[in-house]
């Protein structure tokens, strides 16, 4: 079969990103031809500033070499501009007369720098700042001339001015308004920036309107409308970009400010798609790279005829790539009426942070001097997180939430680390490995870095560091995760959407969910199947049949798989209590099955390591006969209720805490949860059972019981929030059951209570559990119903012969 023909006009970042995304989805669908004006392969345009500043070379910023085009069977025509589109005959024609027919055409013609049409604008030495040729012209000028004027005090202008200054030129920045980077910064941050650039030797002419470029042949100066003038051997116009839509207009495609596309990135001609700076989508033209990459993903999806992706516009953030100046802005950073602002200012240290808050959500952020938490604020902004729980400390950064894993120093700090510094402790990945992978393999997203280096793919505590490295290595091209994350590669739908659909559309099988939610794979993947299985089980405990093949092996085998393929077995000891008879039974089992190692766990249980899978059912039979049930130490489930010595023995004890721990565990054991769930009961505020770092902790006091929620040890230690104080054991049981059920119904699969509480806010949990008695009782009731189906000991079932195939290898002689 003949392949269809795809022609791409534009060899820039958006066009090539779209081709890369397309190759990922379907490498064989099209015969691809790419036309590029510039005589270079595809390069990272946003890194031109560091090239100009002498911090990188052109070779450093090449994204795809000519070999890449060959390897992927892509024909690259570079240095020959497409001059005409014949939509009737479906072909493009270049300036030199080369023709190429297409079945689908992708326009990614980018933008042109806007050159102010003042007299003299066409003199030699007047340029824009857009491509390698401009950078070459600036570098050449810096060798033979002294003074440069940059017109435009925006992001691009300041980067150009900084680069020229680094090349030894005397630079004056001319700006029409009274504040620099007014589209990204509020006035205080803008003033700090100006001061810091002046300290480096940059000069500014503010509120200056250019009237004329002076000189004969080559530029010699710039004259302003007030009559004043400055000398200049080089003038860089960086006053903005205009979508390059000449080709599209000539072909009769509907254009306004840019080439108009719909949510599928299609132009008014259904055979022709467009992405990048040349397009206008819902009235917006984008000049930053992150939105272009989102568009590329969408267009690739449609070119591959998968037909499900939509581009719905982007929220963008900005960083200035001037070494030594930390600046970040995102969203609506100038407050409107009714908005609140939080400001932290330390003029002596040159630090300024402002957050614009509306309805307890971050709407905008400006940061200067300390931008370490930019990524965090941006995530809060895009996800619309309720910040009321940590509003009082939000300006101090994510650290202040007890985030032990992220270290300190921000982007600048990370880049100051040596290449040998270990970034990911789980997978032993050093900074140098990450930087290498990013530059050599052309990575742009956190997911790509995770896939190629394994950094931040295990516990996730180094994610912030990896993102910082990514951000500073690729600059703005760093592709932040989109605001709405699909559960996994199989679907565009988020966890919340899937949970809601299962509930509202009464979806009761995995196939029903995948059909209703347009899954891309017939049977999901190792990431979404366990999640769907859990969501269905949690929502429909009476009807849904648990699917063993959608369980991670630990939950299928009811033991913890160890690195040598053996399992560990942990019998349940309610509240951590045991008798001599219990211990004897465990000792006997251990002897009988030659358990190589035993250990007392942090949750007050005994762990038997190194058990062969085929031995487990027999071992469980012995344990079951001695009165034990599964300890669920392997599951996303209620793990343990830890207790202290208690009132019977301890001279400080206030209530019967051990007995309460046993009752709590009897109520909750066996319940499946979004993630592991640990409880504890301490008999007095000395808190020997460490109840304040548990998912649900009880601290007994003389007058009753304090209930604490949302704590954990582990990677990010989080101390619990106090939910409330109650007076009776019955209340403790009811509130704990209601809390468990709320978590089971609302949290995302694999989200522990600590991040869940931070995401939804403690107030929400109080609303559901404390404010409304009927709601609490209903939650508790649903929990108890679910428990009728969950409290069937999986060990006894299997000891009695269930799932025998799982545990029985087939032995053959060969």
């Amino acid at each position, binding site marked *: 079969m003949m392949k269809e023909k795809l022609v791409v006009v534009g060899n820039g970042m958006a066009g090539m990103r779209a081709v890369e995304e397309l190759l990922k989805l379907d490498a064989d669908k099209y015969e691809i031809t790419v036309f590029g004006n510039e005589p270079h392969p595809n390069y990272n345009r946003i890194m031109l500033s560091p090239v100009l500043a002498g911090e990188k070379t052109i070779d450093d910023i090449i994204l795809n070499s000519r070999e890449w085009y060959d390897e992927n069977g892509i024909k690259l025509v570079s240095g020959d501009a497409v001059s005409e589109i014949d939509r009737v005959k479906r072909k493009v024609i270049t300036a030199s007369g080369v023709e190429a027919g297409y079945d689908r055409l992708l326009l990614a013609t980018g933008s042109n720098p806007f050159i102010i049409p003042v007299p003299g604008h066409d003199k030699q030495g007047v340029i824009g700042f857009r491509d390698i040729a401009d950078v070459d012209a600036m570098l050449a000028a810096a060798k033979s001339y002294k003074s440069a004027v940059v017109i435009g005090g925006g992001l691009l202008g300041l980067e150009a001015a900084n680069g020229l200054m680094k090349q030894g030129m005397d630079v004056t920045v001319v700006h029409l308004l009274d504040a620099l980077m007014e589209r990204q910064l509020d006035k205080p941050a803008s003033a700090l920036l100006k001061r810091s650039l002046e300290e480096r030797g940059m000069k500014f002419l503010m509120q200056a309107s250019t009237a004329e470029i002076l000189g004969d042949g080559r530029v010699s100066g710039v004259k302003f409308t007030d009559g004043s003038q400055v000398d200049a051997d080089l003038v860089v116009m960086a006053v903005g970009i205009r979508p390059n839509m000449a080709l599209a207009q000539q072909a009769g495609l509907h254009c306004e400010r840019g080439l108009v596309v719909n949510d599928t990135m299609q132009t008014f001609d259904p055979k022709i798609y467009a992405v990048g700076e040349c397009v206008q989508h819902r009235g917006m033209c984008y000049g930053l790279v992150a939105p272009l990459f989102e568009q590329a993903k969408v267009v690739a999806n449609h070119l591959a005829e998968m037909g499900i992706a939509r581009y719905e516009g982007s929220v963008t953030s900005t960083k200035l790539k001037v070494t030594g100046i930390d600046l970040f802005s995102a969203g609506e950073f100038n407050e409107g009426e009714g908005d609140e602002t939080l400001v932290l200012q330390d003029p002596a240290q040159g630090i300024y942070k402002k957050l614009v808050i509306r309805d307890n959500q971050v709407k905008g952020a400006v940061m200067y001097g300390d931008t370490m938490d930019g990524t965090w604020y941006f995530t809060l902004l895009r996800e619309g997180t309720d910040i009321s729980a940590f509003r009082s400390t939000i300006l101090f950064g994510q650290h202040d939430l007890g985030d032990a894993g992220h270290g300190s120093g921000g982007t600048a700090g990370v880049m100051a680390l040596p290449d040998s510094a270990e970034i990911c402790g789980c997978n032993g990945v050093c900074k140098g490995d990450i930087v290498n992978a990013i530059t050599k393999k052309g990575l742009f997203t956190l997911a790509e870095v995770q896939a190629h280096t394994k950094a931040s793919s295990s516990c996730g505590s180094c994610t912030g560091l990896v993102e910082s490295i990514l951000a500073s290595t690729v600059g703005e091209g760093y592709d932040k995760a989109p605001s709405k994350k699909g559960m996994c590669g199989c679907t565009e739908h988020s966890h919340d959407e899937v949970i809601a659909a299962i509930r509202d559309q009464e979806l009761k099988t995995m196939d029903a969910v995948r059909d209703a939610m347009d899954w891309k794979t017939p049977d999901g993947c190792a990431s979404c199947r366990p999640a769907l299985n859990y969501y269905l089980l949690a929502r429909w405990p009476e009807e849904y049949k648990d699917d063993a093949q959608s369980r991670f092996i630990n939950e299928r085998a009811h033991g913890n798989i160890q690195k040598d393929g053996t399992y560990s077995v942990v019998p349940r000891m309610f509240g951590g209590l045991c008798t001599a008879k219990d211990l004897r039974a465990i000792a006997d089992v251990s002897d009988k099955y030659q358990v190589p190692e035993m250990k007392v766990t942090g949750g007050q249980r005994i762990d038997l390591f190194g058990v062969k899978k085929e031995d487990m059912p027999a071992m469980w039979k012995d344990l079951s006969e001695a009165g034990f049930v599964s300890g669920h130490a392997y599951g996303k489930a209620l793990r343990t209720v830890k207790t202290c010595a208690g009132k019977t023995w301890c001279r400080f004890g206030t209530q019967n805490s051990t007995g309460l721990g046993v009752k709590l565990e009897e109520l909750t054991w066996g319940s499946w949860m979004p993630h592991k769930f640990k409880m504890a009961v301490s008999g007095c505020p000395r808190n020997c059972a460490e109840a304040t770092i548990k998912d649900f902790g009880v601290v007994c006091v003389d007058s009753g019981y304090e209930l604490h929620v949302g704590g954990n040890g582990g990677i990010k230690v989080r101390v619990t929030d106090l939910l409330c104080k109650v007076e009776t054991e019955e209340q403790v049981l009811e509130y704990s059951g209601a809390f468990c059920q709320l978590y089971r119904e609302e949290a995302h699969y694999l989200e522990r209570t600590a991040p869940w509480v931070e995401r939804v806010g403690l107030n929400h949990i109080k609303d559901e559990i404390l404010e409304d008695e009927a709601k609490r009782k209903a939650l508790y009731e649903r929990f108890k119903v679910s428990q009728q189906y969950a409290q069937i000991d999986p060990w006894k079932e299997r000891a009695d012969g269930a799932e025998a*195939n799982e545990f029985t290898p087939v032995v053959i002689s060969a």
Partner: protein
Amino acid sequence: MSNWIEIVALADIPKLGSRVIKTDTMTIAVFRTARDEVFAVKDACPHKGGPLSQGIVHGTSVTCPLHNWKIDLASGQALGPDEGCTNTFATKVEGGKVFLALKADEAAA
């Protein structure tokens, strides 16, 4: 040529699941997909030797339970950015029975 050995009834391998086959010298994982295709690979992930038989099966691949490498069951190749390969063995299903072919060199290996 290969000698077909009857190993197990198709019905005794769960859909999207596996069975462990032990020979004198090695362990083989036999998988059944949602569409009843059957594949056999050496039960060792090319990464750190994890038991692939214990992984989650999706499409025609399996995800290793130890570090989430994805292995293509037909070729034994690691998918995605990971690189590596595990041995594969021919299988066939006849009359509801699954047969496995061990090549002489691999059986002895």
